[in-house]
């Protein structure tokens, strides 16, 4: 029992590392593969955009509401904007974007590659002398790394605007005070730390999609399982790495 669990853990880690190196060792071919990458970035970005926007608006609103509600009568109004901005940059922006995009993109990568695997399309690529590592894995991992920070910045802006909306219409805080609060006590490392997270999350999303896609076995059922696994493992890894990156960056 335990031996089997340990063994399957190591084969999992080994498999993930193999896919990761497949991706990274082809990074020098990025310029030549710009089209594949551009396609991936666009499809990732466009497919996640609506849900990221929606989630961000409400996340920003509730954060602002709670920031004001919890501190009502204790702290000046100026700190509402500051609390929102800090919460958004340090945690909410990268984390929520990561989780939402994991659900949207890891699954679709796993489904696409899984289908290609079980219908022998990946074998067909191999036969044509096309390396699936370069053709499929690298563009997806690289696009994740590029797309996530962009989506995260966008999400953070929208969250702060969501907060602005609530503070003006729900809390009667003037927009000037709120926005001044947003800039109060701004520390650069908080912004960069969040974006570093989002880069890692992008990597995790692409990697988990590719790994589980390539692991697909059998037919449609196997692809379905791979899809679920990709999402769950991407989300779990995002939460784990969120903590450890925070410990390193904000140490």
């Amino acid at each position: 029992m335990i031996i089997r669990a340990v063994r399957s853990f190591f084969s999992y880690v080994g498999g993930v590392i193999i896919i990761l190196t497949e991706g990274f060792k082809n990074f020098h071919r990025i310029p030549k593969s710009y089209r594949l990458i551009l396609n991936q970035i666009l499809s990732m970005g466009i497919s996640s955009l609506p849900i990221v926007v929606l989630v961000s608006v409400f996340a920003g609103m509730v954060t602002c509401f709670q920031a004001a509600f919890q501190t009502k009568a204790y702290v000046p109004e100026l700190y509402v904007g500051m609390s929102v901005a800090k919460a958004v940059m340090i945690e909410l922006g990268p984390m929520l974007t990561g989780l939402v995009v994991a659900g949207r993109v890891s699954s679709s990568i796993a489904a696409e590659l899984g289908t290609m695997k079980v219908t022998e399309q990946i074998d067909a690529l191999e036969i044509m002398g096309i390396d699936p590592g370069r053709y499929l894995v690298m563009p997806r991992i690289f696009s994740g790394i590029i797309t996530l920070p962009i989506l995260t910045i966008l999400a953070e802006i929208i969250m702060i605007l969501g907060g602005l909306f609530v503070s003006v219409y729900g809390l009667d805080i003037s927009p000037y005070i709120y926005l001044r609060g947003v800039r109060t006590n701004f520390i650069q490392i908080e912004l960069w730390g969040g974006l570093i997270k989002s880069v890692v999350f992008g990597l995790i999303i692409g990697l988990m999609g590719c790994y589980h896609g390539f692991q697909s076995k059998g037919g449609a059922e196997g692809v379905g399982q791979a899809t679920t696994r990709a999402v769950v493992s991407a989300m779990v890894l995002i939460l784990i790495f969120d903590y450890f990156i925070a410990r390193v960056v904000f140490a």
Partner: protein
Amino acid sequence: MIRIKGLWKSFGDNKVLKGVNLDIETGETIVVIGQSGCGKSVLMKTIVGLLIPDDGEIEIENVSLKNISRKKLLEIRKKIGMVFQSSALFDSFSVWENVGLGLIEHSKMSQDEIMRIAREKLKLVGLSDVEDMYPAELSGGMKKRVGIARAIAMNPQFVLYDEPTTGLDPIIADRINNLIIELQKELNITTVAVTHDIISAYKIADRIAMLYDGEIIFDGTPKEVQNTDNPYVQQFIKGEGEGPVSGGI
């Protein structure tokens, strides 16, 4: 030439290939026959390095695939075309992109040129006006033929056909047979084909090899196949339900 030496391959407890030996000369067409599930597709995939044998060796043009670097393997594969039993078309690409993908990736040709070649190859397999369709919009036989067009798009030296005529009507099937013969004659392509279609086998083969119980139990010209007294071969080519060949249902 392709040299297959003592090939073993199993999946778990299922021993599929148990010491397959076969030499395929340059320019020769060899047809592998054998019962459904006897390992013909596994043999094909092992020949091109898609499956790693448990034991034994494949040599293509005197280059062993054992411990070959990935780069070299991919390089060798550019000289090989393969038609998959399941067609294995890229379903996110249109028909012409499927046929032209090798050229798109490996050559510096313009898109127009690649489209022209794709159209030409599609015509060879009896398809026209399908180049902008997607695989999902094609019939099974059409997919098979697109698969053949794709396999020959890069003018390979070796073509492996996994059941090229299965699922095609007799007229198209015969055209594919003729195409295989023509390609072999004109371009001296080395051909390995797997088929259940014994008429097609007689027509295209220089040699027919029968795979049974993980080994090549017979290897000879179509004439020799017809005249052999090997009971397994006789039962297979006559398509008899009763006989020494076990397994199946």
